[in-house]
């Protein structure tokens, strides 16, 4: 079964049963199909949903890696031949290709008409027998890679001759070496031609039987701290060239500077930190400059001296130099009463 093509897997039930039988723990396949949009009916979507199901259920790493990329085909008719184009440019440089498979649907063979040959019966009652029809035409699979800016036929990367199966079914072929070679040469546009020697009937156009490619990879960057943002965060909250993210869009040049007092330990009292005392030993003391502070009656705050310093200098010097907020008499009376 083409979905079981990956050696490390047990044969998956035929894709034909779709996902109806499987209830996703989080959402029904119908939801997932809806999320896939119009592409939900094609086999590549079914295949990927099944891989996801497999991972979610059993934690089975897809193909032994941490990434599976699918590539849908774009169909073109070139010289009356059906050619499928695949754009592999969305592969990330950090994704090391483990294997790649090409999945395609083989139509049931159209047996050639029985051959009528001129025959002279040698024996009287021997009637002319029609010769049995010849073997069905072989299917040739040709892969070419193109670099993005050339319109040539592209470089032939691989060719396979396949016996058409007795009935229509999906098949899968390992094309790992073809994909790896094309990527090494920087040619990430691939074309595949399924040549059965007959003229293109256009039957495949937009059918759910469009071929597709799966690339199983190991993303070496996925363990980076923020790898989820690289592939899933599409809108950068601060696209380049935007004003400083801190400034509100319509704010004037706000003179105020956000700051935090250097509270060295839990504040025991509500005295304000000393004004002009800057303990030399505190390495990270914030150096406030006059112009940075609010133009207001309040003077610059200084970080509180460390507990050691306070103990050394004794409370009185500290109290003398520290600023106690001066309230009016009425407020002080109220406070004392409270």
């Amino acid at each position, binding site marked *: 079964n083409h979905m079981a093509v990956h050696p490390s897997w047990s044969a998956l039930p035929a894709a034909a049963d779709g996902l109806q039988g499987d209830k996703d723990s*989080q959402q029904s396949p119908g939801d*997932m199909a809806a999320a896939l949009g119009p592409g939900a009916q094609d086999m590549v979507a079914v295949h990927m949903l099944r891989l996801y199901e497999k991972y*979610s259920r059993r934690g089975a*790493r897809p193909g032994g890696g941490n990434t*599976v990329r699918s590539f*849908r085909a774009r169909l073109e008719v070139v010289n009356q031949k059906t050619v499928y184009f695949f754009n592999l440019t969305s592969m990330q440089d950090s994704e090391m290709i483990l294997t790649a498979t090409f999945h395609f649907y083989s139509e049931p063979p159209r047996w050639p008409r029985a051959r009528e040959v001129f025959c002279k019966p040698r024996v009287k009652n021997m009637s002319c027998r029609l010769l049995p029809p010849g073997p069905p035409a072989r299917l040739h699979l040709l892969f070419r890679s193109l670099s993005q800016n050339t319109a040539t036929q592209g470089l032939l990367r691989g060719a396979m001759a396949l016996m058409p199966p007795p009935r229509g079914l999906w098949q899968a072929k390992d094309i790992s070496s073809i994909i790896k070679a094309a990527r090494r040469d920087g040619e990430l546009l691939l074309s595949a031609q399924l040549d059965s020697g007959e003229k293109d009937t256009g039957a495949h156009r937009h059918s759910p039987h469009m071929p597709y490619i799966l690339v199983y990879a190991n993303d070496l960057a*996925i363990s980076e701290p923020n790898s*989820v943002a690289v*592939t899933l965060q*599409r809108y950068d909250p601060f696209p380049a060239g935007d004003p400083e993210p801190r400034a509100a869009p319509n704010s004037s040049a706000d003179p105020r500077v956000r700051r935090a007092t250097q509270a060295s330990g839990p504040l025991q009292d509500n005295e304000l930190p000393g004004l002009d005392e800057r303990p030399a030993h505190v390495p990270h003391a914030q150096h406030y400059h006059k112009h940075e502070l609010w133009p207001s009656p309040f003077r610059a705050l200084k970080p509180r001296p460390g507990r050691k310093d306070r103990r050394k200098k004794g409370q009185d010097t500290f109290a003398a130099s520290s600023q106690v907020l001066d309230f009016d008499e009425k407020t002080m009376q109220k406070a004392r009463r409270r």
Partner: protein
Amino acid sequence: QWDEPRVCSRRYLKVDFADIGWNEWIISPKSFDAYYCSGACEFPMPKIVRPSNHATIQSIVRAVGIVPGIPEPCCVPDKMSSLGVLFLDENKNVVLKVYPNMSVETCACR
């Protein structure tokens, strides 16, 4: 929230990709249980917060007050688990990626 334990521990958090605007291209899952870590790493730290050696020492130094300005250790994720995400890439191709460290299993003081 109020009856949550004070000590560093795992708290429940369900993330819905629609809330962070990623649901347009994420096919599945639509949401997942991410959890988060919160709580105190005060001295003395109970075994349950599985402090590292460094966190234990830092917590003692802070309690003794030898050096001013030492904060208490932080409550952070310890064991985490992966999440498989099925999404559409920029070319509308379906991609499956298994992202590590997407959900918190245990928290600890570090």
